[in-house]
């Protein structure tokens, strides 16, 4: 298998001095499904944000598909991001756009043919059971509905990697499983999935590789692991 994501001794300290990631090295192969677990504030989101250059590491190298993204020029960043579908922990929906438009935006950005946009958007909205909310604005949605829009957007343009930050935090178990099935399906089709989660039940029932982070360091990395971050 080919390395898709590789981190080499990555450190991150924020402007206010907080050391969020302290020397992480990791390989994730193309087509893998990885859970990131760890206590609140341990650095999972920071770890994830560095993959699509929302945050730049203070030290270390990060390779995505063979290129060191810490060296990317400002102009190249959008093209990195288009390969990575992100489910943000705080959803990050555009408040002035409807649900439909929010998802379509990810396709307009890559200058997708308008004819295909409608079809693709309605398809993913159907997957997350939100077809009936297509014309609502984000502030007219429940927390879980917003989360599902963010999920729909992350997969709509068939990215190489889907990176999801606690994508089921605001979902009831039933909806959570629907989402997990979607992730499993796209993973089976070759998409790499990296998912930070606190959901013990999901991690233990849908068994995959588990990377446990504590205080910004990897304390455990098990193929076919289970939830937990005691070393």
């Amino acid at each position, binding site marked *: 298998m080919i390395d898709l994501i590789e981190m080499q001794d990555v450190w991150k300290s924020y402007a206010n001095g907080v050391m969020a990631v302290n020397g992480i090295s990791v390989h994730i192969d193309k087509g893998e499904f990885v859970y990131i677990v760890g206590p609140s504030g341990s650095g999972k989101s920071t770890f994830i944000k560095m993959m*699509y250059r929302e945050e730049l590491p203070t030290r270390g190298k990060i390779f995505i598909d063979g290129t060191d993204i810490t060296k990317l020029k400002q102009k190249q*960043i959008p093209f990195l991001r288009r390969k990575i579908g992100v489910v943000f922990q705080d959803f990050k929906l*555009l408040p*002035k756009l409807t649900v439909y438009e929010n998802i379509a935006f990810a396709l*307009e*950005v890559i*200058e997708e043919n*308008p004819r295909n946009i409608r079809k693709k958007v309605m398809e993913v909205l159907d997957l997350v059971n939100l077809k009936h909310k297509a014309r609502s604005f984000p502030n007219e949605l429940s927390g879980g509905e917003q989360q599902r829009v963010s999920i729909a957007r992350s997969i709509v343009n068939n990215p190489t990697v889907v990176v999801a930050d606690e994508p089921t935090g605001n979902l009831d178990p039933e909806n959570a499983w629907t989402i997990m099935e979607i992730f499993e399906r796209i993973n089976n089709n070759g998409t790499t999935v990296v998912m930070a989660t606190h959901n013990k039940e999901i991690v233990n029932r849908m068994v995959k590789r588990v990377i446990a982070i504590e205080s910004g360091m990897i304390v455990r990395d098990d193929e076919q692991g289970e939830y937990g971050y005691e070393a």
Partner: protein
Amino acid sequence: MKLRTLMRHAKEGAKSLGRNGWMTFASISAVTVALLLVGLFLTVMLNLNSIASQVENNVEVRVFIDRTATKEQQETLKNQLQQLSHVKSVTFVSKEQGLEDFIKSMGDDGDVFKSMKGKENPLPDAFVVKTDKPKETIDVAKAAKELNYVDEVNYGRDYVEKLFHVVDILRNIGLVLIVGLLFTSIFLIANTIKLTIVARRREIEIMKLVGATDAFVRWPYFIEGLMLGVLGSIIPFLLIAIGYHQVYDWFIGKNYQTYLFVKLIPYEKMTLYLGGLLVLLGAVIGVWGSLTSVRKFLKV
């Protein structure tokens, strides 16, 4: 860029104007109000300037001819005067005509001088010299004084110098005010637009995080800024055009044109240039304010 994409940006820009409702309103009204002010001042200042020029152009040099001069000597003097640089025209005015003009120029006050008509007339014959530039009057008068058979040269020195001084001061004040006003307006408009866009910084950040290029984010804002500016320039233009029409008609109706010896700038000319200027100004400031504000948030 594909045409399709350009269309998409135009549509998004227009849509955004609508969805940002009262923020759009705030921006457009800032443009409106600032341009109204600029337009108003510009109209007033341009007219005052034009009036000042007209007044200045009335200035003339009166060269009184020595009573002893013969016809030939007068002719020589006329030629010499015509040869002076910056002289536009030289006209002979007999002493009778001169007194008549003087009495008329004094208006009602002239009545007491009527007794001077006939042989008591204290005025000699004169040449009236006009210069091509008002300011040359002073030099021409000095030069004329040096010529033979010149009794007295009269160009209302006190009055003329005072006039030029006052006009110069007023012009400078006007220029300072108008430039100050222009910068102020640009600043205030750009400031307002900036604030509406900062309120949307999260929006821009999200777009970038979802993979939009800078250009892709910028285009709709470009269109939005353009529309803001142009929409904001319409009301000031209309108001000033209508207002100026009223004032212009009133000015002519009251016969001030002849009464005050000055003309306003013609209506069509004024509105044409003003309209062009305001729309251009609005569009440029709108786009500029919009794009510079967006730029700050693109570094995501």
